């Protein structure tokens, strides 16, 4: 295991730990304002300062981390659960089924990801579930494409041909032989999408279309901070650092996973 692998795992571990138990450690309620302590710089009472409504920034980063990670993990998991089977069926069956499924994914891929997510949240209204759904829809065609490519490559492999010769049905072959072998690139791709999903959530919240106040997310904390760059720059620093560290952690972990699962190694 290289230093890079260890760094990724440590960052990710810390972030997941903070998301799991962090909210319980919050020194203050992240949603409750204190109008007598607004825009206070970092101090012993508020380690990372307070925001424009007097809420503790550290507590909001801890609580917001859970939201950001939840959005990332659930949206990618949902996209994988729907996209990967669709891609596998598409690539393995081929013909009309492949054409129909792939043209549908092409429609989704035709829109820039952020624009598609914006359109979905604008149409369905801003909320946490809508944000997750929007990001899942953006991720879905990517995972479907990866799974399809794998299935197409695998369907002519000797062991698949052998299974067919032994009289197994197509669905059984897909389930028993193709899917398990096609999944590792999908998992690697999903780990990379986790990072981009957190970024997309922060974009949506930044634009006022993601997680709704007073629930904190790193994105809407940045959104709130933008008006106070001259007066209270720490409001932008800390959530920005949290996003940076998490995305770095997921990317490093994704690289590690890719190396580990690469059949050529």
């Amino acid at each position, binding site marked *: 295991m290289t230093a890079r692998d260890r760094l990724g795992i440590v960052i990710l571990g810390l972030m997941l730990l903070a998301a799991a138990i962090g909210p319980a450690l919050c020194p203050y309620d992240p949603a*409750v*304002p204190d*109008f007598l302590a*607004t825009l206070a710089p970092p101090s012993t009472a508020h380690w990372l300062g307070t925001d*424009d*409504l*007097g809420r503790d920034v550290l507590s909001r980063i801890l609580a917001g981390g859970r939201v950001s990670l939840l959005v990332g993990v659930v949206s990618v998991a949902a996209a994988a659960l729907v996209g990967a089977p669709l891609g596998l069926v598409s690539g393995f069956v081929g013909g009309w089924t492949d054409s129909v499924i792939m043209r549908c994914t092409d429609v989704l891929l035709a829109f820039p990801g952020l624009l598609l997510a914006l359109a979905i949240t*604008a149409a369905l*209204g*801003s909320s946490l579930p809508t944000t997750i759904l929007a990001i899942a829809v953006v991720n879905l065609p990517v995972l479907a494409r990866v799974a399809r490519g794998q299935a197409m490559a695998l369907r002519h492999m000797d062991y698949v041909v052998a299974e067919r010769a032994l009289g197994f049905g197509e669905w059984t072959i897909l389930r028993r032989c193709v899917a398990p072998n096609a999944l590792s690139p999908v998992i690697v791709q999903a780990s990379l999408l986790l990072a981009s999903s957190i970024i997309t959530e922060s974009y949506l919240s930044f*634009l*006022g*279309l993601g997680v*709704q*106040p*007073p629930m904190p997310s790193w994105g809407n904390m940045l*959104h*709130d901070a*933008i*008006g*106070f*760059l*001259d*007066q209270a720059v720490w409001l932008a620093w800390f959530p920005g650092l949290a996003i940076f560290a998490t995305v770095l952690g997921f990317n490093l972990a994704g690289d590690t996973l890719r190396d580990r699962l690469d059949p050529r190694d």
Partner: protein
Amino acid sequence: MPTLPRRTLIASVLAAPALRAARAQSGATLSIGVVSDPVTLDPAFSASFFETQVLYNLHETLLVAQPDGSVAPGLASFTMRDKLTYSFTLRDGLTFHDGTRVDAEACRANILRYTDPAVGSIRKSDFGPLQSVNVTGPLTFDLVLASPYAPLPLVLTNRAGMMVSPTAVQALGTEFATKAVGAGPWKLAQWTKNAELVLERFPGYWQGAGQAFDRLVYRPLPDETVRLANLRSGTLQLIDSVPPQAVAGLARETGVRVSQMPSLGFNAFAFNCTRPPFDDVRVRQAFTAAIDPEVVQRVVYFGTGQVSRGPFSPAVGWAYNPNAGGMKTDPGHARTLLAASGRTEPVAVAITVTNSPQMIRIAQILQAQAGAAGFKVTVNQIDPTSLITVLRTRDFDMCMSPWSGRYDPDGNVYNYFAKNGPNNFAGWQDEVVTAMLNEARSEADQAARAAVYRRIQARITAEAPMLFLHFDAILQASSARLQWTQYPDAVFRLYNARLT
């Protein structure tokens, strides 16, 4: 390498400011950062305050409002023949930007267009009880009213008084909205939507071709930070809507100047009185009692502007009542009122605001304060362009309903609180206040009108159809070299603007 003689170099350096000023005076461009691009340049259909920043430089009004709220002649002067008849005399020799004459027939065509139901102009209600427009000579006409209507002269200093070329209206049809032809100090040169709107000097303006700037360039920049950055870098020389938190810091900078004054408008929320829970006056009173506008003033506005307890702005001194207390902030009383309404806590309500940082901040303060008094508040964020639709369809529990304000106090209340007022977004149907509003607008004596407005304010406070929070200060900033006059309606009127 060639070198400049030292004397030439020194002379050039010393002359640079003078040369710059001379260049500024001849053929200069003034770049202005505004919050939003206009939707239309046709005053008949202009509904957004932000459009007025362009409209008042593109079009000219029959009468002109002074910064102190008094009325001066514009395209025309007027006399009041009796309580129901206003006679107007136009200046001689004026033309619209297309060269056609500004005469009595053109003004009649404009006013009929504003008031014809078939046209559907939103200016119709501005004219109140207007009965007829009678042309009495090439440059004279009368406006005849069905009943006294004191606000009329001030109304004609607003968009309702803007005269556009009837020939261009006919020729352009629906394209008039994007190619408007008026009689203002500048005419439309070019408009690239959401990027740049350019006006160029109109030499035939009635005050003469004394504009210091050949071109006004409007750049829509919704983000307040971006507007400020462009002002600091010198890309813009004038910007609208400076964020309150930036005022103290900007005051210490030498290259820019912040201008502020009390505005005519108010920042308030409409309660939806047509559906539960705010159809019950006790719930409206409870919510009002739960909110402390002082906190909004301090946390959101950083001490700029003034706390509001009603619709009349302190900028209109004769109608403003500094002693009107409004409802006291008392969360305990709010809970008592909620209990009296028979509702079990928490009472769920949604607050609708546009997704501007300032409005979201206000919504969160209301959320926290009302939450402490027995409400469960969710915040709905909408796109600014959807706001008017949400308000008109009353698709809200409570929704931000800010008003830019009018010089005449009638403009701050009639449309909002009269039973059929076009801005009665609250859906509050109150016979008593409607009668008082009609009484106030038909009364010519200012002191008597002020007395009626005090009764109106008391009634509005008691029934709480809207939650009043704040009288925003007008906060605008410019290059320190730009001399210009700020107006309490926040509109840039730039004919006299000069670079020094």
